[in-house]
């Protein structure tokens, strides 16, 4: 029972009426903003970051978890109703979800997505409850070299797995690392890249960076992209899925949860990959695969369960190792740092109330999501009718004024605008902001651990390879780094030999 005592205490924390209220507010606001065109979960959390200032840490995190789930579900809503995936992880939901909506079963699709999300999160949270302390205790022995290696690996994995161009992602990550060095050096006290600006002496704050890159950058980008197809009003009957629907979808949910849980622990795009894999698995397992794409309920249930399970299990590396697995987790990491909480192996031991509060708030967040999803569909449809021309200045003002309220600093607002421009330009030139933000968050951790290790190892880089954990992490790093080159080399040889074969065949004839 010793093990479960803190878990139950955590539930006590979450069940506190204040926390419950904030969680509810978070879910609803998250859904509302998540439904807005062009604003995915990362942008939503970034824009709403100022909301969590000035609240108690536990409450703030609970609210963030609510926003996170709400924003994720917002993407599902537009996928089902308008065939517009709010983010990569709900793309596959479009295939069957939209068809179901066309058949007048939008309520069923949305309901099953909410139930699936809940199921997926439940499995992941149970897994997290058992796995997290284990990982954390394992990581307690980590020294500076291990942390440096782990941070390097995390950045590299996110850079290589997500996005189109790996080289560009690595460049973006490196720029993020450089931005993290701005300010006073913690070892020598030297001022770096501040250009004599007093506001820069303490370094660049995370909130303006994230709000600018994800929030304003996205809004500026959307300004020139208004030519979306317009849909006729959607009639949604507020029906919950029937018992038969749930029975039909249950096996898909089961598979989706397990799949999502394991894929989610791996760094880099866990939710997206797991939804894709789940769709493929469901299609393969189904007795009649031709139903898919024509409104098969499993095609909604599986991927939606999987992406939420993955989103939840990606909290494991964040909370136990302090390594965010993707861009969205990087924002949550940043938000935790703002609250004075450093996620890492010590968190679970030093602050069990907080740790389990966070874990359980995910659970409550999902229950609230389940309760709010169907009744609020009418509100969402009404929001979709508001023209972007009206919405854009509203979201911009929320971001700008919100940024000001954080520290009452106009310089922060200025930074938001500058990073907004950077985000826009990056998007135009094919660079993703995700790796940059992630690297920025891990930057100081990486640098200080690297320098500490160099001090400990007396400048001998070979020392990294004499310690088993750091050595294996670095070997994985090298493999991941070299894999794309290796693969293209193999591909080339394959096509070469193929070409040669074709040539010889021709000669024979």
């Amino acid at each position, binding site marked *: 029972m010793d093990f479960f005592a803190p878990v139950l205490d955590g539930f006590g924390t979450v069940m506190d009426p204040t926390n419950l209220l904030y969680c509810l507010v978070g879910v609803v606001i998250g859904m509302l903003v998540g439904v807005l065109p062009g604003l995915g979960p990362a942008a939503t959390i970034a824009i709403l970051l100022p909301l969590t200032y000035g609240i108690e840490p536990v409450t703030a995190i609970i609210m963030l978890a609510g926003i996170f789930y709400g924003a994720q579900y917002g993407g599902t809503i537009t996928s089902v109703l308008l*065939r517009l995936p709010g983010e990569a992880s709900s793309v*596959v939901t*479009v*295939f069957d979800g*939209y068809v179901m909506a*066309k058949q007048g079963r939008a309520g069923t699709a949305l309901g099953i997505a909410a139930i699936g999300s809940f199921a997926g999160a439940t499995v992941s949270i149970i897994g997290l409850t058992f796995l997290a302390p284990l990982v954390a205790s394992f990581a307690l022995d980590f020294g500076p070299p291990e942390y440096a290696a782990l941070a390097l690996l995390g950045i590299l994995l996110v850079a290589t797995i997500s996005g*189109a*161009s790996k*080289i560009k992602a*690595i*460049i973006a990550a*490196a*720029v993020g690392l*450089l931005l993290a*060095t701005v300010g006073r050096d913690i*070892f*020598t006290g*030297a001022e*770096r890249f501040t250009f004599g600006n007093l506001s820069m002496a303490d370094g660049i704050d995370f909130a303006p960076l994230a709000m600018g890159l994800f929030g*304003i950058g996205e809004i*500026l980008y959307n*300004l*020139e*992209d*208004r*030519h979306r*197809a*317009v849909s006729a009003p959607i009639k949604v009957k507020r029906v919950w899925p029937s018992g038969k629907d749930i029975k039909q979808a249950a096996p898909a949910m089961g598979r989706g949860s397990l799949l999502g849980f394991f894929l989610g622990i791996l760094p880099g795009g866990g939710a997206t990959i797991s939804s894709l894999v789940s769709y493929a698995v469901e299609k393969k397992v189904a007795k009649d695969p031709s139903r898919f*794409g024509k409104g098969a309920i499993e095609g909604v249930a599986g991927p939606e369960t999987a992406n939420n399970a993955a989103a939840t299990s990606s909290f494991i590396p964040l909370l136990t190792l302090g390594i965010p697995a993707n861009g969205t987790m990087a924002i949550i990491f940043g938000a935790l740092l703002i609250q004075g909480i450093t996620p890492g192996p010590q968190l679970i031991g030093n602050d069990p109330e907080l740790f389990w509060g966070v874990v359980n708030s995910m659970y409550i967040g999902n229950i609230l999501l389940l309760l709010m999803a169907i009744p609020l569909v009418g509100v969402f449809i009404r929001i979709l009718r508001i*023209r972007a*021309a*009206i919405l*854009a*200045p*509203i979201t*911009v*003002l929320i971001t*700008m*004024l919100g940024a*000001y*309220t954080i520290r*009452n600093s*106009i310089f922060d*607002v*200025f930074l938001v*605008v500058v990073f*907004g421009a950077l985000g*826009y330009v990056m*998007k*135009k*030139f*094919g660079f993703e902001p995700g790796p940059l933000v992630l690297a920025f968050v891990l930057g100081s951790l990486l*640098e200080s651990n*690297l*320098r500490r290790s*160099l*001090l400990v190892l*007396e*400048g001998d*880089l070979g020392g990294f390879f004499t310690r088993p954990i750091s050595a294996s992490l670095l070997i994985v790093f090298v493999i991941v780094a070299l894999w794309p080159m290796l693969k293209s080399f193999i591909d080339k040889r394959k096509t070469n030999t193929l070409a040669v074969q074709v040539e010889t065949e021709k000669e024979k004839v």
Partner: protein
Amino acid sequence: MQKHKDKQDTPETDEIIATEALTPEELAEIWESDAPAKAGPVAHLASSLVLVAFSLAGVIMSVNLDLGTPQTPKAGMWPFIVSIIIGVMAVVQLIVGRGGGRDGERFTKYSWFALIGFATLILLVILMPVIGFEVPSLLLCFVWMRWLGAETWRSATLYSTLVVVIFYLIFIVGLGTSIPHVI
């Protein structure tokens, strides 16, 4: 009856295709064809060169910060390493992606909108501490709605006023934040 679909190129008259339930493959095709034009080799070259310059600047400033030695790294060491990585990757990018422009997007005439939007944001930052947030916000809303969003004069005036009033009520009256305001 013959159902006819017009396709015209001017953006104002971009006539849309009646959308029916489609297979995932068809859907992917539609998304592909809807996607904006790729950035192309010039943008590719330009972005790589800017990054190289950025990296050189980083290297020079890091050296000025004092690198130290591997045994006792000083303030400049880490930024130096990272700057080098940026430079090397930019050069790799320049070479590997020569044919280039598989990602990114071309600037269109609507890209001016983003620039105008950026200008109004800068204006808000400059004016807010001087004359409070109300007037600059009203201006921003109006510009975004009337010119960037093609609302009518009437609705732009109405909605921008409404938005500023509501923001005033929320941020100043309701939350009591210290955002500079005149009233």
